């Protein structure tokens, strides 16, 4: 292989003494381009099972040819699958992690010792699989392109001459429901039956905002009949006509837009009734973190559709062996039937009662709730660590996470993209069906940030913030026609992701298990007129945003983007683009037959690496019709449906 005349093991015409130089450059865009210019490479793919490239605990090392890496021998004789990674669909919240089925040649019985009956039998289930791409022998010249583990479901299948190992990407461990604790009889023996099994929620952010109740000057009451505690209560609070107590309430229906719930678990004599509201923190050892709730300012007992005023401890209590947080309610507030004076009645749990309250959770930095505790990226990261058991150092691309959590901190950015001390979000997770990775994706999509697995196999972030996209002239990655495999170019209109008007639903509360508020409808009138007056409308959900201005900003940005109309282009490229990463932008030129694209900005949405090292399949989102920033002009500017600064119309009366 020759690349720019650097190192080449075969043609050492510069060194007549045949002194071999045994080091190769790291695989990089520059190196691949230089090799591409000679139209030939000697890229090699290696697979290790049970450990990493040259680790001593690695059980099997195979490759697409007999070779050495770091003095470890890799047997040739493996069928490698295509390795693929995708961005999630734009407005969906699901992600597909890659799978790899690897067939290993065992015709000579080389690996019999690991199979059933062998001296070093291993079931392989849950063993790691790594696939590397590189060349030569230097360990440093190899890049992992897949990390997985062998599945328990038909993970090992054996035939006469081969055995097959089926694996899933390590990140697929995030494709699971939340591993939060549940209310159990062992921990709370007096918890009511209908609360047993309920998930103890994870709560982050400010849940006092929007925790609205009825006008406090309206003072409705409700009658309830307590039990034997009656003797200790003043008779003035009795409605003698019914022999029930009048309990002070507030109106709930139609007014709640915040707040969280607590589930009754215990009663302690002399203290009160405990309603568990959240987990106390996460992890142990260096991963441990304690969440710090603020004092509780408001708390009510919800019984059916009634919200009863109660007396409660302002300080959040700790309950259960694992240290969950709880609110302690002691009494209900009664109202004298004649004078209107208030009294108290010992609270007694009835089936279905829930505590509802507003509280702020801080989990970053100082003890008090601060800017960073409403930061969308911080919250998403904390959720991933707590529920996804991720390690920041090993599993997250810290560069992109840090970039976005600090966006707007050191340099000015538009308000719709200001993550630091700008857009505020909060998180309540208590539904047992919640999927960890999908919830993370949907959380950050609300601020137009996408979560994906990058080239380094870590979870990384990229945005649809238009200011993050460089002008076309500054985009370093170029795709030329000569790099495209013939007959592989296939453009297709994206019919699914097109709409020109939308509103936003926001402010989820677990009290009613839904988003309670809505923005006005926003329209891209230019786009509607240019398609013959057809309005295609969408309602977008922003459950974890709770400030209207933030939601308006996101809705309008989404309309600007998706009212333009896009093309998705599938193509195969030569190996010069083997290192293309999801979310990268490139400038594409292609002029063949009926397709004429000249320096069109595109974004990589899917990458599939060919196992034979000849190239890569990409899916590109073409911005051929959308002006991303001021310095980029488009050929049909006046005919285009939308742009980064498209003027939209807010419809205030329907």
């Amino acid at each position: 292989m020759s690349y720019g005349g650097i190192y080449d093991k075969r043609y050492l015409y510069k060194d007549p003494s045949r002194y071999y130089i045994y080091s190769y450059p790291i695989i990089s865009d520059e190196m691949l381009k230089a090799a591409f210019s000679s139209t030939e490479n000697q890229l090699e793919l290696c697979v290790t099972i049970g450990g990493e490239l040259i680790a001593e605990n690695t059980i099997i090392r195979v490759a697409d040819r007999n070779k050495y890496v770091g003095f470890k021998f890799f047997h040739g004789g493996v069928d490698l699958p295509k390795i693929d990674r995708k961005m999630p669909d734009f407005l969906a919240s699901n992600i597909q992690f890659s799978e790899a089925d690897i067939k290993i040649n065992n015709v000579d019985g080389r690996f019999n010792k690991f199979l059933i009956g062998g001296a070093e039998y291993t079931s392989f289930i849950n063993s790691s699989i790594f696939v590397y791409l590189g060349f030569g022998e230097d360990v440093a010249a190899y890049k992992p392109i897949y990390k997985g583990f062998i599945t328990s479901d038909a993970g090992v299948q054996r035939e006469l001459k081969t055995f097959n190992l089926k694996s899933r990407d390590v990140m697929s461990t995030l494709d699971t429901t939340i591993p939060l604790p549940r209310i159990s009889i062992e921990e709370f023996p007096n918890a009511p039956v209908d609360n047993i099994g309920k998930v103890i929620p994870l709560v982050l952010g400010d849940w006092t905002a929007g925790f609205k109740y009825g006008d406090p000057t309206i003072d409705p009451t409700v009658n309830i009949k307590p039990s034997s505690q009656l003797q200790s209560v003043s008779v003035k609070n009795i409605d003698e006509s019914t022999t029930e107590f009048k309990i002070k309430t507030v109106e709930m229906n139609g007014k709640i837009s915040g707040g969280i719930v607590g589930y009754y678990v215990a009663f302690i004599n002399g203290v009160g009734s405990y309603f568990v509201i959240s987990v106390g923190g996460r992890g142990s050892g260096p991963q441990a973190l304690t969440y710090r709730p603020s004092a509780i300012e408001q708390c009510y007992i919800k019984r059916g559709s009634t919200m009863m005023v109660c007396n409660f401890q302002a300080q959040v209590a700790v309950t259960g062996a694992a240290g969950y947080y709880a609110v302690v309610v002691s009494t209900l507030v009664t109202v004298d039937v004649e004078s209107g004076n208030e009294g108290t009645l010992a609270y007694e749990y009835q089936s279905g009662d829930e505590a509802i309250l507003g509280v702020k959770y801080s989990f970053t930095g100082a003890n008090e709730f601060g800017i960073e505790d409403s930061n969308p990226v911080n919250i998403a990261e904390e959720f991933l660590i707590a529920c996804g058991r991720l390690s920041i150092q090993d599993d997250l691309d810290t560069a992109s996470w840090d970039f976005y959590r600090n966006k707007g901190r050191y340099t000015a950015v538009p308000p719709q993209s200001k993550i630091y001390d700008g857009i505020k979000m909060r998180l309540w997770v208590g539904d047992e069906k919640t999927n960890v990775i999908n919830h993370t994706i949907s959380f950050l999509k609300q601020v137009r940030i996408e979560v994906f697995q990058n080239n380094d196999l870590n979870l990384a972030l990229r945005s649809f913030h238009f200011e993050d996209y460089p002008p076309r002239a500054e985009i370093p990655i170029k795709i030329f026609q000569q790099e495209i495999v013939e007959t592989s170019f296939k453009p297709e209109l994206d019919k699914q992701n097109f709409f020109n008007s939308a509103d936003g639903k926001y402010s989820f509360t677990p009290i009613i298990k839904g988003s309670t508020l809505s923005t006005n409808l926003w329209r891209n009138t230019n786009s509607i007129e240019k398609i013959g007056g057809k309005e295609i409308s969408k309602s977008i959900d922003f459950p974890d945003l709770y400030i209207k201005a933030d939601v308006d900003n996101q809705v309008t940005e989404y309309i600007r983007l998706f009212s333009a109309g896009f093309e998705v282009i599938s193509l195969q490229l030569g190996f010069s683009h083997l290192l293309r990463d999801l979310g990268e932008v490139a400038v594409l030129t292609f002029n063949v037959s009926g397709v004429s694209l000249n320096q069109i900005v595109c974004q990589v949405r899917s990458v599939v690496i060919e196992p034979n090292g000849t190239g890569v399949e990409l899916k590109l989102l073409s911005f051929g019709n959308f002006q991303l920033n001021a310095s980029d002009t488009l050929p049909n500017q006046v005919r285009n449906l939308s742009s980064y600064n498209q003027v939209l119309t807010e419809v205030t009366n329907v």
Partner: protein
Amino acid sequence: MTGTVKQENYSANQNLRILWEKATDGLKWQNIIKSSDSSTNLGVDVAVINLKSDIVEQVWRANQILSFANSLTPKTCVWVVFDAGGADNGIDSRTCAVEMFALLNHNLSKEATISVYGYGPESTSAFTTENVIIDAPYTERDTPQQQGYLIAKFTVQQHIDSFNLSEYDNNIIWSYGDPNFLADALPTYPYQDTINKSFRYFMLVIEDPKKTDQQYIEVGRFIGGQPLIMIEENFSANVEYQEVSFKDEVQLNGFTSIANSRALKKTLKLTFEHLNSRKTNNFTLDTGDTRSAINHKALRKFSGYCRDTIKSLVVPQINNRYLFYAYGKLTEMPVEGFDYVDEESIYVDMTLNWDEAR
């Protein structure tokens, strides 16, 4: 490269050689009894046992060390000792002759020197290289392992000069009759005058002064033994030789293709016409030694043992050995066409195809 090579005349000395009885592989798997590797072990996957692996990409790597302190000329080198004759399970041990050997997939420079020594009769035991004396006058000794008989000693440069070896070819093939010794004051060994000098042990020594301390010597395969030599009869004039390029290739727009190159492997096809399966042929080597063979019978013995599953080194024309040769397996068992004339003349036509990629 591909093409048909025509050879007009073959002298008796230049006939086909096939090295398939690999004496240096010994009678037991663990017949490498000692090597310089023990103190400079670079890893299990590059251990000296790889010299016996027909996967030539699976190599032995070792750093050179100062060796043979008791010799006249201690050397900085790598060395390995093969027990060609020792056996287990009550089988009698033996001695073997090495008239041809090959180092395949090596990384030696032009300045490297390769030496092969033979030691002792079949009863030789307890071999220890600490007592080895090399490059000294031969005398009869009580302990045969103390005196190594020099079988071959040459530099890579000599092969480049003598046999048109490309300096980038990484295989070396030595045959009895090659120029042997460096021009220094070395004594004449009796072995120079005799053939079939058989020994129990063989030692391979490689010195490469161009390698620094941290640059290892690498050899993928070492084979040595007595080759099949065709006598009088030989293969036909047309030899087909090809170096096959294994690659994955795609076609791009713009009338260009790109490829991922994997390996370059040789194929060799020899055709035999009118071999008389009844006639014993004799020829005398340069040394005066006489050999006899029924050539067809010798080829049958070879194909019957190696079949299409074991590799052999085929060198059709020893003076131009690097022009076309292969270390590979037969692609299929040969189809033999018989022409019966009379009891003393049963002629055979057959074709043998070798493929290194199998």
